[in-house]
């Protein structure tokens, strides 16, 4: 997904006098940007306005990857004013106030272990407070156990990978709420 392109398209729509721009590219990358409809106009026929963005990302038909399927942003349907800007992305919608959140990603390829050994306590659990040197998990690659440390101080909001699951480079492992 080309966020930069989408960002620029949104800019174009916001700064112009058009309601919608749809760009279809090869491999069916379709991007449609629809102007936000003011919610205070009551008597507008809803059907003609609803434009849930439907953006298939390039997903392989034989996708057996361990990548999680991308979720589509939910269409807006609230009749009340909505503070949210138009959502155009096909990637997981960021949680609210994501500026306070931080995602710890895997710096290597390997197998994720939440604990030092099968029976042991996990290094980190949801709700734990961590500092930059706290070990969060192990990613094992080529028989070497690589300890992954928190890069920031905060509270563990979520663990995103199951114990023993393979992870690729850049794959999100934990969400931290920054202190």
């Amino acid at each position, binding site marked *: 997904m080309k966020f930069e392109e989408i960002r620029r398209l949104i800019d174009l729509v916001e700064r112009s006098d058009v309601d919608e721009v749809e760009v279809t*590219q*090869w*491999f069916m*990358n379709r991007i449609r940007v629809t102007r936000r409809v003011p919610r205070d106009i009551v008597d507008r026929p809803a059907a003609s306005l609803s434009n849930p963005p439907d953006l298939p990302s*390039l997903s*392989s038909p*034989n996708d*057996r*990857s*361990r*990548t999680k399927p991308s979720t589509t942003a939910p269409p807006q349907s609230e009749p009340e004013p909505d503070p949210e800007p138009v959502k155009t992305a096909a990637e997981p919608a960021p949680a609210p106030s994501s500026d306070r959140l931080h995602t710890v990603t895997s710096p*290597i*390829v*390997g*197998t994720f272990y939440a604990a030092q050994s099968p029976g042991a306590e996990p290094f980190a659990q949801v709700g734990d407070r961590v500092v930059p040197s706290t070990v969060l998990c192990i990613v094992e*690659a*080529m028989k070497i156990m690589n300890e992954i440390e928190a890069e920031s101080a905060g509270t563990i909001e979520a663990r995103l990978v199951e114990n023993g699951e*393979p*992870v*690729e*480079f*850049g*794959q999100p492992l934990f969400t931290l709420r920054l202190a």
Partner: protein
Amino acid sequence: MFDKILIANRGEIALRVIRACKELGVSTVAVHSEADRESLHVRMADEHVCIGPAASTQSYLNKERIIAAAEITDASAVHPGYGFMAESAEFAEACRASHLVFIGPEPETIESMGNKVKARERMVDAGVPVVPGSDGPVETGPSALAVASEIGYPVIVKAAAGGGGRGMRVARSDAELETGIAMARAEAATAFGSDVVYIERFVERPRHVEIQILGDRLGSVIHLGERDCSIQRRHQKLLEEAPSPAVDDALRAKMGDAAVRGAEAIGYDSAGTVEFLLTPGGEFYFMEMNTRIQVEHPVTECVTGIDLVKEQIRVAAGDRLGFEQADVSVQGHAIECRINAESPRHNFRPAPGRIDLVYFPGGPGIRVDSHIYPGYDVSPHYDSMIAKLVAHGSTRDEAIRRMRRALEELIIEGIPTTAPFHQAVLASAEFSEGRVDTGFIERFEW
């Protein structure tokens, strides 16, 4: 046969290996950098693993990450393609240590052929002709003149530590040789910090002709004829063909025998290529051996009907070669043009960027190997080759005409490519008459 193969490469060669695996019924794992997320090899593989950021050193050249990707996906073998880890003995060794089959020769073989001096020695031992030379450093004075008189003028003085044309002098007489050695030594001392030089026969207007080799783990080695790669620019091949217009059946048999002899001597058990310099007089000299599949392998596939990548995988799995030397015959003629994202009118400078539009030619005798599509971003991080166009015809003339019409059909918009350059080469009298050598492109005006 393997259940699952990890392809430690990107671009068209990754796609090529995936295609071979699909035809063999083997599952595939693609690895990719963050820049290659939307690549076709990722799309077409059964599984894919992101192994690092765009920089090759942190992704396609990072052996730990590649092997970890094989481990987490339970792949049993690794195909290295060409470039990147394909000729890394260390990587082959690491695969072995991790109980992964490296689809290529043994690390020791890669090692010995990767060292030019060692490779030359092994080939001399096996009776493969090498460029006559001093076999060691020479000094000015009688010893140099004696060597030169033995190998015959013209000779070339080369810095032992050299490269890139510096510290080199061609001499056509004793007097030129004495001056040449002095100047080469001075230049070499400045450039490389060592004034050691050696002498070799200087081959004028050579062709680059290489023999495709295939060996199995049961000791069979055969050759699949030659490819002529004389159309090159600064040692970068641009257009290749099979058979060579300069090689007849007798010479093919001689060169093939020499290549097989060399490969047998080192116990070669995979797909590989023995590169020769071919003189206008029909003498040939070993240059080097490439212990991997080559970019230009499709021209050999077209004229022999043999799928080299599938054979390479089969022999790595321990299978016997599917045919003997007598079963191999060359049918017709094939030409490959490398379509690079380069500006041929500006000294072939790389031209990465977004491809707006692609239309590939089709119809009889046309093969396309490419990983691009409309909207594809040619990354500045990697090789500029974006497609290989191959034309196969019943004669060389038909192959040339077919390639010219295929290049006419080809549409790539958004970035400049080498396609117009290929059109000019194919339209030249020198090429169509087969009168080219490795210096042709340097002299070629278009």
